[in-house]
């Protein structure tokens, strides 16, 4: 009993410390975004200067706080917005694809019986397990064949047919009782009516969790655009930071902060569904 009491007292402290550790990068970003160029260059000198010795030092509160980098990025850097809207377009396209393609596919896997269904699902899972580097070359060849290299379609289409969202939503659709579907059939509902009026409402948690997970994944997409997009005007925001040099490190911090904002909003809006999705993906087949 005493042990439990002690644990209850220590735990919040430990959790607070852990929270601080995890939040430190965010604080680092926020303070960096408010620092002046000279101050940043002083702190980051060991990173950029080859001859400099020592390590990066940091101050939690800027000596001379300024919003100059925010103004510079948000008003004087149209390139940033090109990449931002490229990211929005890619993520929006992919998530729309997931809803249009992935949801019926998951419903099909969950509620219909057809030959080689199990084998096909295993293939789905195997494909889900493969990292991008494995399928990169074959994807490139296929996309090249379809003249999709250096187009946003070359990023969106493969992602639309990703297996992971199907797998997540499959778990949610499996939870829809068969009896409810049979009742609906008896009442005269067709397959589409059952799908739209029973399947989607009951699997909405899965759909939203897929959207949240998908957003967080595809908002930070780096390898695919770097591989399949040659024109810089097609690049997403995740590739903006590599364009930053030592001369404008402040902009790097600000752009990171701005890129973080939609992710936070999406996370907050789908936090509970995200948990359900993660749980669903952890269920053993």
């Amino acid at each position: 009993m005493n042990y439990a009491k002690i644990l209850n007292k220590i735990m919040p402290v430990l959790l607070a410390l852990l929270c601080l550790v995890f939040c430190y990068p965010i604080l680092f970003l926020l303070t960096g975004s408010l620092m002046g160029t000279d101050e940043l260059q002083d702190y980051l000198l060991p990173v950029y200067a080859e001859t400099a010795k020592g390590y990066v030092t940091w101050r939690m509160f800027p000596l001379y706080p300024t919003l100059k980098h925010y103004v510079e990025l948000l008003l004087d850097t149209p390139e940033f917005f090109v990449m931002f809207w490229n990211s929005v377009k890619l993520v929006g396209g992919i998530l729309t694809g997931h809803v249009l393609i992935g949801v019926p596919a998951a419903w099909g896997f969950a509620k219909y019986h057809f030959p080689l269904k199990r084998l096909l699902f295993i293939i789905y899972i195997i494909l889900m397990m493969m990292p991008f580097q494995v399928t990169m070359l074959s994807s490139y060849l296929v996309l090249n064949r379809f003249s999709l290299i250096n187009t946003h379609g070359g990023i969106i289409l493969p992602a639309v047919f990703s297996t992971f969202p199907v797998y997540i939503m499959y778990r949610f659709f499996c939870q829809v009782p068969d009896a409810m579907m049979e009742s609906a059939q008896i009442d005269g509902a067709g397959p589409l009516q059952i799908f739209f009026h029973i399947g989607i409402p009951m699997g909405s948690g899965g759909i939203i969790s897929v959207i949240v997970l998908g957003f967080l994944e595809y908002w930070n997409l780096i390898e695919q655009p770097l591989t399949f997009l040659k024109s810089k005007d097609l690049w997403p925001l995740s590739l903006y930071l590599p364009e930053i040099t030592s001369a404008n490190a402040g902009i790097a911090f600000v752009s990171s902060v701005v890129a973080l904002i939609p992710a936070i909003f999406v996370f907050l809006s789908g936090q509970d569904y995200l948990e359900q999705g993660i749980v669903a993906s952890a269920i053993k087949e």
Partner: protein
Amino acid sequence: MEYLTERKLSMGTLREKALKGLAAFLVLMIVLTMLSRAADSLTVALVTTAAAQKRTIDHTIKADGIFSQNKEEAVTVVENILIRSVNVSKGSLVAAGDVLMELHPDDLQEQIQIIKNDIKELELNILAKKENAAIADIEEEKNLTRAKEEYDRAVSSGNTAVGKAYNAMTKAWKDWQDYKNSGSTVSAGDSQKEQEEALERTYEDKKTAYESAVESMNETLYAKENAIEDAVKVKEADYSNEIARMNMEEMQRKLSKLQALWEAEGKIYAPISGIVTEVRVSTGDLTPATKSFLVADLDGGYQFTAQLGESQKKYVSVGDEVILNLSGKKYIGGLTVEALTPNTEDANKTDVIVSVDNTADYFDELYIGGTAELVIENKSEAYATTVPLTAIHEENGSKYLLVVTESAAILGTQLSVEKMEVVVLDKNLTYAALSEGVLASGQKFVTDSSKDLEAGDRVRLAKE
């Protein structure tokens, strides 16, 4: 159960807020996108571009100039005559025979009289000189004759004196010799010896007297010869008469001019029809030694003179076709450059001279001091690479173009400018010819920009 319901409710509220926040964020990003685009469009220069073309570099040389007389005649008058009136002024249009000025008749008459007197004086001087010379000759002759006579007389008297002395000496010699040869000398006594010695002394005295007579005669003759020589005087060179005669001739010429003026009642007439371009006399003054008037001969045409700068001069040569633009859209064609001469006031300028004869168009409307614009068209060979002059920039003495380069950037295909050094072979006010091989075929360069550009600056195309 209640906890779960509460959690669901709070999550729902949070979700709504988060979705609203996301929507607001996206709206903000849309606004900022437009603002940053607008700011970018304001900072990026709007440029006009062009590509090099093959063409000739035509030089149109233009310069303002004035008309002046082609030929003019000076009017001169005998100097120092009082002017009664001057009938013309600078710029007066006169016909041949018009009275330019009138001389004072009294002064003219007085001048004539003075000249006549001077001539008379010179004549008398010459005559006096002649007569004096004749008198001097007679005097000289007389003196010479007298000297010769005196010489002859001295010869005669000298000969007589010398002959007498000679005879006395000869006689004394003979007496002395005779006495010695008489033989009495051997046995002679002292008296005889004294006698002989006396004879010898006599002889010696006579001899001395003879020699004195000869010497005296020689001296006398020498003096007389000198007197003859002195009588013939060496004459000094004397051209005064010739000089006086020349002066007299000059005066006679002047007299004839004055008499001509007198006969013309002192009026000075214009020798030709034209414009009086210079008047150097005024009423009440004396006439000058040099010109009194300059009259431009309009029938001889006009001379048009314009100044060209260093940059224009090299495109103009003698014989080039010229057009003179007059006022009111009138022009004179068919003219040529007659001469190119250095400007007397500015060493960096050159005077281009064009003759306009009386057959030229609008000749009647021309006048001395009138202005016109000279136009000379100089066509060059065809250059393969010519660019508008506005495209050429200069920095530290080197000329360059700002060529437009395309590059793939985040904002899409981005245009920027790069410096390309060029060599200008020739240029006019509009185009410049460049050395070949620098500009690639079809390569675009900036001809006009809304802002000053540096190498690497981004640009937007206004129009091709």
